[in-house]
């Protein structure tokens, strides 16, 4: 290969050179010639490479191809690229990709820089798969730039929109400032970059309404504020609703087991007056298994609302545990309503003759 060095590529480099392979071959020769002599232009490479940043992808590639007047940048660019390439038909695409990355934001350029050491280890034979997305990526990139601009503009415009919202919320009848269907005729400034026809406005209003309601729900259900993403939040809400319904069912089952024994007639004013926890004799074995449900309310039990088993003949100690119950009462001092259900389906009360006070004046004991 002839050392072209810093001299121009010369022969017949015109932009109308259509066959890509021939271009790339020539490019390969250039690059190989360029890489062989040592270039210390690495420091200048960054600066001159960035000169290519302002160019769209195609022009940059062409410049790389034909480094005529801008040859030092091209050489420096190729130096930064520094790719070992065998079959260099892929080099065009790779160069294109690099330049395309450079046209994006700075993190992309650093990723472009990060790609090169990765690509160094890449065997050239495996270049063919990445070539396919790269030319497809090329036309995408310029549009991505426009999207970046658009999103930036949107971010800016959103602030203006929220300012608009604040001012319009101050208006008396403005529910949703974007929908003109409620109010007679509202001129609304749409956000920048978004459509302004009535359909989109209505859709946007609807979406905002739904999002606001979702936020309300999120705040209501515990633990949803941290979750981002509508689907997970909805799953969490569903779980919460199901668990609440199950709790209601469970509690109602308990209540149903107790229900035939309990007389609620005298209860209304007591309930509304005290609003305190009531001791209820538990159902079949479930209550016996969790004494914690009853044992914790010393305050209420000093007040002494206790459910008394209704028919007077039920007033008896359980035959199985006579001593236990009495010791329970004495140990606790204040009578904890610790009822045990015997298999004979009779409620265990406490001995009326015991020292535990019965607030019979507060409760009606008839069935």
């Amino acid at each position, binding site marked *: 290969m002839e050392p072209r060095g810093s001299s121009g590529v010369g022969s017949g480099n015109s932009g109308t050179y259509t066959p890509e392979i021939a271009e790339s071959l020539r490019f390969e020769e250039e690059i190989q010639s360029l890489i062989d002599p040592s270039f210390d232009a690495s420091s200048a490479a960054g600066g001159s490479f960035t000169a290519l940043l302002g160019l769209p992808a195609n022009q940059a590639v062409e410049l790389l191809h034909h480094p005529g007047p801008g040859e030092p940048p091209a050489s420096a660019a190729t130096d930064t690229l520094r790719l070992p390439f065998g079959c260099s038909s892929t080099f065009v695409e790779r160069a294109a990709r690099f330049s395309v990355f450079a046209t994006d934001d700075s993190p992309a350029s650093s990723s472009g820089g990060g790609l090169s050491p990765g690509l160094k280890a890449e065997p050239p034979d495996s270049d063919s798969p990445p070539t396919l997305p790269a030319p497809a990526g090329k036309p995408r990139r310029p549009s991505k730039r426009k999207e970046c601009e658009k999103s930036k503009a949107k971010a800016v415009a959103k602030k203006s929109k929220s300012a608009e919202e604040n001012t319009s919320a101050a208006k008396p009848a403005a529910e949703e400032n974007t929908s003109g269907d409620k109010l007679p005729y509202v001129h609304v400034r749409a956000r920048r970059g978004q459509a302004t026809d009535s359909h989109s406005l209505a859709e946007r209003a609807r979406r905002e309404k739904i999002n606001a*309601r979702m936020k309300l*729900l999120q705040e*209501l259900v515990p633990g949803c504020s941290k979750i981002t993403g509508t689907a997970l939040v909805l799953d969490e809400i569903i779980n919460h*609703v199901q668990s609440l319904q199950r709790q*209601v069912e469970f*509690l109602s089952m308990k*209540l149903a087991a107790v229900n035939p024994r309990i007389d609620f007639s005298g209860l209304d004013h007591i309930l509304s007056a005290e609003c*305190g926890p009531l001791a209820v004799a538990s159902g079949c074995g479930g209550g016996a298994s969790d004494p914690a449900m009853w044992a914790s309310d010393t305050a209420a039990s000093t007040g002494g609302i206790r459910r008394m088993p209704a028919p007077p003949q039920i007033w008896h100690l359980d035959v199985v545990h006579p001593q236990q119950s009495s010791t329970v009462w004495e140990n606790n001092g204040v009578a904890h309503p610790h009822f045990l259900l015997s298999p004979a389906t009779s409620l265990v009360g406490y001995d009326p003759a015991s020292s535990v006070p019965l607030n019979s004046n507060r409760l009606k004991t008839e069935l």
Partner: protein
Amino acid sequence: MITAALISKRNPEGSTSENKWRTGARERAYRRRLVEALCRARGGSASGPRAVKEAADSALALTARGRSRWSRAILFGRRGGNLLLKARGRVLVRRGRPRMVAAPRPEGKGVRDSLRTLRWLVPGCRKVSTSSLLKESADYVAALEMQVKAMRGLFGV
């Protein structure tokens, strides 16, 4: 909650709907109604657990005063012997939630599937729009929490 305040601008009442469930007044009202319902249920039908649950739910719906959609669905779903129906004097028979049908787990993780499951869970919200569904479910969650709290309080926890 600022968003709640923004939404409630369209409501004639001042406070938001689910905050009302948190107040003690609602809970006391619910307890009263629950006890009445239990009394009545005990005297009347068999005191199976389902009857108790239905009574509790009806009491809850009644406490909501029929303002929310799910409460109306519950009240009109129960046939006969309901306070609201008696007061109104006419029986509106409407299909409530079918009993003993388990709601399916959210099939897939999509938003639409979860919304469908939510429709199933909240009574009376089969055909409403999404935004109404979300509003109703917020109200429903608040009401359920109050119900659980009241029933627990009844038991002495």
